[in-house]
């Protein structure tokens, strides 16, 4: 099971990397979404796929009676999902504003902050 999931993670990483390397912001956004999903599966896989029983200790017992699922990766993934979701929402608004204001979603043409024809500083006075 871990092997299969590892392959899935690898594929997702490859696809997201391809998308992030694009010049267009919207594709980069999609790449970022895929990347965060790939990471979530990776963390899940890192916690090992053991059992599907919920990790609850029955009343009166000191420890779970049988094998239980590892709860920590799930907590980590939940946090990571929340964070990546809010970041995606923010980036979406930002990219939309940038597209409206700058009139392009091609990062090569976004040179407002770093103009190309910026000569050297004055060498004397």
């Amino acid at each position, binding site marked *: 099971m871990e092997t299969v999931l590892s392959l899935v993670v690898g594929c997702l990483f490859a696809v997201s990397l391809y998308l992030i390397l694009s010049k267009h912001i919207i594709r980069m956004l999609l790449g970022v979404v895929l990347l965060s999903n790939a990471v979530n599966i990776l963390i899940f896989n890192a916690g090992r796929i053991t059992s599907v029983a919920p990790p609850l200790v029955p009343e009166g017992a000191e420890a779970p009676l049988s094998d239980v699922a590892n709860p920590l990766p799930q907590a980590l993934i939940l946090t990571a999902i*929340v964070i990546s979701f*809010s970041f995606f*929402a*923010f980036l*979406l*608004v930002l990219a*939309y504003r940038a597209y*409206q204001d700058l009139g392009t979603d091609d990062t090569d043409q976004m040179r407002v902050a770093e103009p190309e024809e910026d000569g050297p500083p004055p060498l004397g006075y």
Partner: protein
Amino acid sequence: MRTIIFRFTAPYLTALMVLFSIFVLLRGHNDPGGGFIGGLIAASAFAIYGIACGVAAVRRALGFHPMAIAAAGLFAAVCAGIFSVFAKSGFMTGLWIFPKFFGTEVALSTPMLFDIGVYLVVVGGISSIALALEERESD
């Protein structure tokens, strides 16, 4: 999206979803649910209302600015942690009291305050983003 059917049903749908979101929030301590998912349900309720009746109507209905709601939630969540100073336990420790209202025992706790804080943060944060996006579409 301004069809008459949608505009007629949207307020009822919104009210129902907000009610359900509070239910999900409160059952969260012992069952699936909680502040985050409840907040998402409420935020999507306001988003639906915004699609149907316009962003201005939602802002009027909310009363407070969404970011102010989120801020109140953050404030509540941090306060929930600070209570542990008085109990001499680690920051964010869950503290419970069981007062009786009219003979019924009600469980009040700092995790619940924290959860309500998370709920408000999510409602405020997500609906402010959703409203910002909807506002632009209508331009």
